């Protein structure tokens, strides 16, 4: 597939046909090129990270993926497992990975962020969520600290001020947890009022 070097290319992973259609449209209307696949395995195949090859080989034009957005709950391979595989790859570990889930489960969110997810979006995904994603792709900062404190986004009217979050004890770089300058690059959580189980 021909990718205009100006346009960002997003790999979307979701086993739900309906969600794939919606996320694809959300991304396209936000001027992104989209490849939508229905499983983690297919995503790895697309990236060239499946078992056949250890890393992406340049058999033709180099594959340019600017962001991976994946559902968490998927059969066979969860979004978390896919995230891990991407972060283990020397070729793709710098690509921002965003996790989506219909369930607002704090330990799950923490685990994903600790594994290097750029953000965690509570479904259903909205236009304002995608706007935020574009910010990650624009800056594409290398070596973002994995233990920045989660920040809260008020951009969407569905977000709710959460209780204060304690950080895990790990070495973190010089920037203070609440530095305003790195808002865009910090892992951000969104809590939805309507999401209850």
């Amino acid at each position, binding site marked *: 597939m021909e990718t205009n070097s100006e346009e960002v290319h997003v790999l979307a992973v979701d086993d*739900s046909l309906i969600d794939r259609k919606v996320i694809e449209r959300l991304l396209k209307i936000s001027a992104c090129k989209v490849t939508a696949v229905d499983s983690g395995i297919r995503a790895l195949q697309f990236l060239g990270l499946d078992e056949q090859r250890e890393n992406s080989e340049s058999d033709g034009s180099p594959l340019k993926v600017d962001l991976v957005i994946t559902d968490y709950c998927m059969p066979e391979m969860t979004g978390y497992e896919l995230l891990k595989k991407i972060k283990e790859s020397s070729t793709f570990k710098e690509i921002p990975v965003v996790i989506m889930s219909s369930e607002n489960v704090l330990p799950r969110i923490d685990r994903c962020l600790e594994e290097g997810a750029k953000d965690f979006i509570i479904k*259903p995904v909205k236009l304002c969520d995608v706007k935020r994603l574009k910010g990650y792709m624009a800056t594409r900062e290398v070596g973002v600290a994995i233990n920045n404190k989660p920040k809260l986004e008020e951009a969407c009217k569905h977000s709710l001020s959460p209780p204060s979050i304690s950080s895990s004890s790990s070495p973190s770089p010089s920037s203070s947890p609440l530095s305003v300058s790195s808002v865009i690059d910090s892992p951000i959580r969104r809590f939805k009022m309507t999401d209850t189980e």
Partner: protein
Amino acid sequence: MDHLHRKLRDHEAAMFQQGYLDDQFSQLQKLQDDTSPDFVIEVMTMFFDDSEKLLNNMSRALEQVPVNFKQIDAHAHQQKGSSASVGAARVKNVCGTFRNFCEAQNLEGCVRCLQQLQQEYSLLKNNLKYLFKLQQEIKTAGRSIHTRG
């Protein structure tokens, strides 16, 4: 054509007011434009197909002996997810209750919930079909006005 517009607007407003639809449906409407003029109908058609399949699966699963609550819960989870994605609020809410009964392995509760789910789904589908019908009538009326010129 004014009365058609009014009918459409009122019907749509009622669907939101009565909780059939929530903000996510508005999101879908925002995604529809000249490059994707039938987006909402396409998504909702997918939703209808998916839901009918899941409702059938849940119905059959509840008839099995013994009942596999985990499997039914998986169906309810999927139905809840797709309902949330398209803004089908009432259907989504019933799915939430359904999942609780599955977790509690409460067969009677599950059966009641399925009935409620089928009812809510039916109401939603009929209301949406009417909405789409009005939209189509407006489109057709618009076209005939143009050709008359």
